[in-house]
């Protein structure tokens, strides 16, 4: 890709900001490029990055999914409390949670695809429903993690140790899952007809239908995929934290959506990339995790998240506006 084409991409600027941010933190604290800090960051990136892949697909198709933390929490809480100790292998837990997530995603997909309601309102409603089922019917207290998943939680890829301070952090095996999931997302979006369909219906639904894409089926797939992934991620989260906490994923949806949009995924659909979603998530995670290294008190972290969302989305919104204006001028000149 030529440099000129590169500089037109949002991903390029996000990567630049990301690098600049890393350098600033390094200069201010001297603690950024230490093995344990990098491993810590990758560790905190794991869950949001996986969520971002599912959310990105929904956004590209022109929808939005606010219900994945609720789906993840309910699926995870169900398998971890109701099937505690039933299996000695972690795989059935993942599969059952994915099946539950898929069912819940299918409800979203059906309502959005059949009635054409705004996906945000539908998924907010569904979110409230699933959280209610979890907290009201299953209970919402912390619960010890079943041993099969506990053992998985202890498995690590590598350990980063800071030679000076002696602090060390482990990179759990779940980071590997996240990488695989990102690759699957990339493959579906870029190498399959389904992926073309997702872009097509996000760009123009009517045109996509005329071109022969199955709009209903594609929408159903996206929400089912997002739901099944949420189930998987929920169990990942529990096994990474080594405890079953039903409430600590709730509220993540907004940060994930913002991260995707920061990475150049369009909120009105038709545009976006896996790389962008990952970079956007990395930027959000970096900001949230590095304020201490910059000497900023943690009470400010929400203000900074808000500023990042507003500035990041503001810049791309203004760009979009200018592009449209120049387009109008070009047309009216002819």
């Amino acid at each position: 890709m030529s440099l000129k084409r590169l500089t037109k991409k949002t991903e390029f600027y996000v990567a630049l900001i990301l690098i600049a941010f890393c350098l600033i933190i390094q200069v201010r604290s001297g603690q950024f490029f230490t093995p344990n800090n990098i491993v810590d960051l990758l560790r905190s990136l794991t869950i949001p990055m996986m969520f971002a892949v599912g959310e990105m697909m929904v956004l590209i198709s022109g929808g939005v999914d606010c219900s994945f933390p609720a789906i993840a929490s309910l699926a995870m809480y169900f398998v971890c409390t109701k099937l505690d100790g039933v299996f000695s292998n972690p795989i059935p837990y993942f599969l059952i949670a994915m099946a539950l997530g898929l069912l819940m995603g299918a409800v979203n997909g059906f309502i959005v695809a059949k009635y054409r309601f705004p996906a945000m309102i539908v998924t907010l409603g569904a979110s409230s429903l699933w959280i209610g089922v979890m907290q009201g019917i299953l209970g919402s207290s912390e619960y010890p993690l079943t041993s099969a998943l506990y053992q998985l939680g202890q498995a690590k890829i590598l350990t980063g140790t800071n030679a000076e301070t002696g602090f060390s952090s482990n990179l759990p095996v779940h980071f590997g899952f996240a990488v695989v999931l990102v690759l699957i997302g990339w493959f579906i979006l870029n190498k399959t007809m389904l992926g073309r369909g997702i872009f097509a219906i996000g760009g123009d639904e009517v045109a996509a239908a005329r071109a022969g894409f199955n709009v209903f089926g594609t929408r159903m797939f996206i929400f089912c995929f997002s739901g099944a992934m949420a189930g998987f991620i929920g169990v990942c989260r529990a096994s990474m934290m080594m405890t079953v906490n039903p409430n600590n994923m709730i509220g993540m949806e907004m940060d994930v959506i913002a991260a995707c949009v920061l990475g150049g995924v369009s909120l009105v659909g038709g545009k976006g990339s896996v790389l962008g979603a990952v970079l956007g998530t990395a930027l959000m995670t970096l900001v949230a995790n590095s304020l201490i290294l910059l000497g900023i008190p943690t009470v400010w972290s929400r203000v900074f998240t808000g500023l990042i969302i507003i500035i990041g989305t503001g810049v791309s919104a203004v760009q979009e506006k200018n592009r449209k204006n120049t387009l109008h001028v070009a047309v009216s000149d002819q």
Partner: protein
Amino acid sequence: MNKQKSSGLAGILDNSSSRMILLFIVVFIICSLLQGKNFLSPDNFLAMFRQFPEYGLLAIGIGMALIIGGIDLSAVYLANLSSIIAGLFLHRFYNGDGTGGEGLVLISFVIALLIGAIGGILNGVLISGLGIPAMLATLGTQSLFWGFGVVLTGGSTLSGFPKALGNMINMKFGLIPITVIIFAVAALIAGIVVQKTKLGREMKMYGTNNRATIYSGLNNFKIVVMTHMISGMLAALSGIIMWGRYSSAKADTGSTYTMQAILIAVLGGVSPLGGSGSVTGIVLAVLIIQMLSSVLNMYTFIPTACRQIVWGGLLLVVMIVNFYLDKRKKNRH
């Protein structure tokens, strides 16, 4: 003529306002049948009156944002931020021993409303000036308002206000608390704006098609900023009520109200796609939700978290039912 005759009930279902009144009556009757003694008691009415104004005001504000085809996710946190700033003003200037200070409390209310207006204008400018989609702009400001609330309070609860604050907000005229009167006046003003003024008509036009409004020579920027300013002031009013009711202010009070307010607005006939809706409908929906909530409370064996199932399920069911009713109406015409 024949058509006219056959549409007794159907005609009621066609019009969203009369649909709401019918639903209100049905819910009222069901609640009375289920929990007659408790539900119809004066104590219960007083309890209901105390509860609904704070989220009812939020619902009207968020409903207005929905009418222009947007959304306001920041309202609850703007409500909290306005009362926190007003509370800090009181802390700074009130030196009494808990008595007196009525004047200062009134000034602090004005400050809260002002903060609400400024926050709303910020939302409007981000949405219409910069062109950030409403959902993201208000998501960003949600984080911002919440964050400033945390920074200003250090993450703790702000309390120790003069008694005049609680006394004023908890005042009653007979059975009617002053908060209900505040709600009624605010709803009336918002209702007049949405249903009777030029701005209200422009809001609905913008919500239907915001390109057409440009070509019709309307000022899109003004419409969006005004709508969000009103929505912000309604949020601040709700913040004042929550602040006075508990005599304390916190950055994340009432965080579940966002979802509930969206539900109420959609239940009240505001189109989630923008372009239509009325404050009358929202007010009726507020009352319906409050009745359901109170009756659910009377069944003590049902955990409070189950209410979320009802809200979420109801939102989806109401949208689907409205879809079929509207479709039938279209088919007949």
